[in-house]
């Protein structure tokens, strides 16, 4: 199966008859923007990992190595589109405008969500692997019923992108999501980042064939892309979102990439993968690739890099300060949103708890 690539690991632009026009409008400023987003995403990654090591976060899920797939695909979305991320999509969240400090509320243990999904059209992630693509399909079915698909108005036509990984493709819910999307022609893009590893299990255990063939099996148009190539990731996603917007139905994208770090900060990849594999993928680093391309074109001036360095450090400081400022929520907040309308048991348990707490405060006997 062909893998779409517009930039080689050495940073050389290769022609592609099908996709060149998708990136023709991206000038040097736009590409520097992609570069900055990837660098900032990685700086966030480094900072959050450090905060976990310092005991400020209980856990963190690094995205290092997957910046091109995430930043490229996210830039191909229209403001009215919706993204349904998994738990490693920091680059997507950053591009959509979510404050990355909010991503860490979950890992700090102060919230199970973190941000207002409506603000940037980015849904909350769940830790249940593969559960959310069905929500993305249902959301897309709602867009169809709202009449915002296939109107021909680019400001109005909308679609959904669901981010998932190679491990998730084995979940039954993902197969059901593909079935429902195919049956309803829902305007949804399944963006699978094949980062080669589901914690310690290699992708070969999830599938005997390239993951992209999964989509074909469900009758869904499929494309395989070099996920460490930000231009190609952008191009294939732009095409898929256009199909969704026009009412032409779902697309399945396999972005071939690599999780350069651990699954989470609790993981130890030294136990299950070889150094030379990691080294080989490091040579294909997505950030280096775009840097080489821009450098060779003379489009990476020193003042831009200095400014980016300052922005990176400002982001790191913002993340550090934001995490330090996150305090435990009020214990009674656990009762706040159990239901959307009054529930007598929750009300009575809350009343009991408040009384119990106040009894302790007064030093009463218990």
């Amino acid at each position, binding site marked *: 199966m062909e893998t779409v690539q517009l930039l080689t690991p050495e940073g050389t632009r290769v022609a592609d008859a099908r996709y060149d026009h998708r990136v023709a409008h991206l000038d040097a400023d736009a590409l520097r923007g992609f570069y900055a987003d990837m660098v900032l995403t990685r700086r966030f990654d480094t900072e959050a990992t450090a905060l976990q090591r310092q005991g400020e976060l209980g856990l963190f899920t690094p995205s290092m190595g997957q910046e091109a797939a995430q930043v490229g695909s996210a830039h191909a979305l229209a403001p009215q589109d919706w993204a349904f991320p998994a738990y490693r999509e920091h680059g997507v969240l950053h591009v959509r405008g979510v404050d990355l400090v909010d991503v860490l509320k979950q890992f700090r243990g102060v919230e199970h969500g973190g941000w207002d999904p409506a603000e940037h059209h980015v849904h909350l992630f769940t830790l249940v692997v593969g559960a959310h693509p069905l*929500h993305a399909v249902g959301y897309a079915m709602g867009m169809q019923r709202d009449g915002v698909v296939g109107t021909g108005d680019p400001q109005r036509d909308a679609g959904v992108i669901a981010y998932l990984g190679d491990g998730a493709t084995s979940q039954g819910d993902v197969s059901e999501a593909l*079935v429902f999307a195919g049956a309803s022609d829902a305007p949804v893009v399944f963006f699978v980042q094949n980062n080669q590893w589901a914690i310690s299990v290699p992708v070969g255990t999830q599938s005997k064939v390239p993951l992209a063939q999964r989509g074909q099996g469900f009758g869904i148009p499929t494309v395989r892309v070099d996920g460490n190539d930000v231009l190609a990731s952008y191009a294939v996603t732009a095409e898929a979102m256009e199909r969704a917007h026009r009412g032409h139905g779902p697309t399945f994208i396999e972005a071939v990439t690599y999780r350069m770090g651990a699954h989470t900060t609790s993981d130890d990849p030294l136990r299950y993968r070889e150094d030379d594999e990691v080294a080989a993928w490091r040579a294909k680093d997505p950030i280096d690739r775009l840097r080489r391309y821009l450098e060779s074109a003379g489009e990476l001036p020193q003042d831009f890099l200095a400014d980016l360095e300052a922005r990176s450090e400002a982001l790191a400081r913002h993340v550090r300060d934001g995490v330090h400022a996150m305090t435990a929520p009020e214990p009674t907040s656990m009762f706040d949103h159990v*239901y959307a309308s009054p529930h007598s048991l929750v009300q009575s348990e809350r009343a009991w708890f408040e009384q119990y707490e106040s009894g302790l405060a007064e030093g009463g006997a218990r």
Partner: protein
Amino acid sequence: MTTTADRAGTSSSSVPTEKVTLARAITLGLRTALAHDPSVLLMGEDIGRLGGVFRVTDGLQAEFGADRVVDTPLAESGILGTAIGLAMRGYRPVCEIQFDGFVFPAFDQITTMLAKLHARSRGRITVPVVVRIPFGGGIGAVEHHSESPEVLFAHTAGLRVVSPATPADAYTMIQEAIASPDPVIFLEPKGRYWDKAEVALTPYGTPGAGLDKARVVRPGSDVTVVGYGPTVHTALKAAAAADAEGISLEVVDLRTISPLDHATVVESVRGTGRCVVVHEAPVQHGVGAEVAARVTEECFYELEAPVQRVGGFHTQYPPARIEHDYLPSVDRVLHAVDRAMAF
């Protein structure tokens, strides 16, 4: 059992009534909701042209179209998962699970997603999804078609769990479930689908009794018998039989399992001093255990006897030819009444 006068805001003179089965009452309730709220959608297997295996959605696809009465692929998790997405987009999906034993492929979506999204989003997202499940036994069915999984849902915070026992409640409660901003597990007592009664066809939005209130459906003085869904009928038959022997049973229809209206139960037991709880689900860790614990906590000194529980055994639901030995019968209810009266 219930009359028009039971419901606030209605009067029997202005509201048309119709004698319908419990199944038909749900159909009419769904039809009213579809007609008055464009965000309401029905989703499920075979609910369109076929009208559902119990014909509860009969005629609705023809009336409202295939976009609003959706024949889905045969995948329960897919039904629930896409319903959640539709609810996030502002729709009010009503999902039909064909039989109780087939809800489990959707159990993950119901318990880890549907029940938690409102809390996970700190109230920013509501997921007003109704999950209709024909439940309970007694119809001579094959395996996985006669189960009572209510406590699995009642144990999950974020879900409301309700079960109508009469056509009148079926008509109003399905509409209240659809109007609720919370996810509702709507358990339909399939053994009573064909019970007929006069139902006041109140307009959409008429306030009902609420999805958090039990109801005394037969006053009595000696023993309170608590049931819900299919066992309300059993309890009422037991009450008629006990009456002939001079024992007066008060029958409480719980109507809702989460939340559970303990106040109505406790008030009844304060009057009778004795309590028997009846359900088809296994006794162990069942609704009866919860009722017994709360009755004991709240009216210990008024109790004349330990709370008695009548229900299924800790066995797999048995083959149809012996299901009536498993299900709580009138005789087993009366046996429990006798045990309570012996103290």
